[in-house]
């Protein structure tokens, strides 16, 4: 594959907080349909990296090159804020750890799913509503709840609604920040199952940050292991988890019960 096939290309990304390193010297390519997992303990820089890639934080140096629909490869770090904000409501999606951060709590479930469609010009109420119903079904929320506000939903339902709200416009790249993090174990399993089938059925391209190796084992094609802001090991998920090379990865893997 040549560079033009690649969906996202991160080059030499670095972010510092004063003398403290957030992340440093991170480079990788992501191809369409691929799921990249980023693992590490809290403070390892994985969330900083995710936020730099998604345009929430401005990196100090480096490039985040995205293959845009109309103009081909573009560095999203240097593009104008309007362009970047347009990208984040069309081709990109961001799933927050806490559903409250990604949902409008005062707006009905249907309105939450419909917002991104309306933001890009959908103007047919009936169509918007039908699509919203369809998506509620796909994330296993009873369509009779379409006019209820997310505040009346359980934590797992809120997270599934956030996923529906993000996927409805068929984004080409999805950032996920600990999507199962705030949930009970039983709820986690169901959500993980849902995510796996969505990723497969829709051939999604995903960058997922988590401290939970079980999540990446299930979802990720490739894996990056981060420690103190640096990538210490990367490769195919099974390879990294079954035959970890770096001492830190070995420690991570051994500290997890078999999944």
């Amino acid at each position, binding site marked *: 594959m040549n560079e033009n096939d690649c969906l996202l290309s991160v080059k030499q990304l670095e972010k510092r907080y004063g003398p403290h390193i957030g992340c440093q010297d991170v480079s990788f390519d992501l191809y369409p349909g691929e799921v990249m997992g980023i693992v590490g303990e809290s403070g390892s820089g994985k969330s900083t990296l995710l936020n730099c890639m998604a345009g929430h934080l401005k990196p100090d140096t480096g490039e985040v090159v995205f293959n845009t629909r109309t103009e081909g490869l573009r560095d999203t770090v240097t593009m104008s*804020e*309007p362009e970047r*904000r*347009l990208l984040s*409501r069309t081709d990109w999606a961001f799933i927050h750890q806490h559903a409250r951060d990604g949902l*409008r709590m005062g*707006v*009905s479930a*249907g*309105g939450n799913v*419909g*917002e*991104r469609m*309306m*933001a*890009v010009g959908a*103007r*047919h*109420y*009936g169509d*918007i*509503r039908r699509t919203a119903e369809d998506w509620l079904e796909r994330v296993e929320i009873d369509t009779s709840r*379409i*006019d209820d506000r997310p505040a009346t939903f359980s934590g797992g339902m809120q997270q599934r609604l956030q996923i529906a709200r993000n996927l409805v416009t068929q984004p080409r790249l999805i950032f996920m920040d600990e999507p199962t993090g705030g949930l009970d174990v039983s709820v986690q399993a169901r959500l993980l199952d849902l995510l796996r089938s969505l990723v497969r059925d829709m051939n999604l391209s995903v960058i997922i940050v988590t401290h939970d190796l079980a999540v990446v084992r299930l979802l990720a094609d490739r894996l990056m292991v981060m420690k103190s802001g640096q990538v210490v090991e990367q490769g195919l998920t099974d390879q990294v988890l079954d035959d970890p090379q770096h001492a830190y990865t070995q420690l991570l893997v051994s500290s997890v019960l078999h999944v």
Partner: protein
Amino acid sequence: MNNEAYNFAYLDEQTKRMIRRALLKAVAIPGYQVPFASREMPMPYGWGTGGVQVSAAILTPDDRLKVIDQGADDTTNAVSIRSFFKRTAGVQTTTATSEATVIQTRHRIPEVPLTEKQTLVYQVPIPEPLRFLEPRESETRKMHSLEEYGLMHVKLYEDIARHGHIATSYAYPVSVEERYIMDPSPIPKFDNPKLSQNAALQLFGAGREQRIYALPPYTKVVSLDFDDHPFEASKANHVCALCGAEHSYLDEVIVDDEGNRMFVCSDTDYCESRRAQGLTGKSAA
């Protein structure tokens, strides 16, 4: 207050120049809210200080001024503003829409089509159409500059989901030349179609919120809606009891203790000139 103590039309020339600059910018960018250093006026904020400042900045001694509130020339606040300019600018005033060169209005657009020789000045309480979705000025200004208007339709979506209709009956938001979303001031949505392609210059002044915006003549203005729930310029389903008008905006008047009601034109000049032409409704004996 005597006439000599104050400058023509009350405001000093420097202030007028500042307002005119804001007006020029507003005309150049239709629908965009231009910040301006609103002055304290001798009437309270909320009584039309924005409109008064705009009128003061554009009035010339040759102008003929009409002031309406709720469509009527004889409502107390219209009377008060008209006499303010009569006193401070000495301009001629009129109640006849067709004779006026400058019309200051609160909550209505006159029924008779305006001409290129006329300017309509609106009093605006809250200029920001996104305000009740997002209370922060710093955020709404960003939403305008980036054209992030999805939220506006979410509000309309929620209306239909709950009521089966778009439940906004006045201050109904519009899109100007497919760029800025604008608050047309609290006119009933019945008046919204008159905003578009209007021959007159339309100026909007919000004193307390320190904003001026404008629609130059023949600007395209579209009321927000959905394809399958199109905008409707609705009004009471009656005819004017005094002049028989079928297509004017009507006020509902309670006429006795039993709660009997009648409907009459809200635009008093329109109604009177129709009656002067001999047109009558069922109550005009």
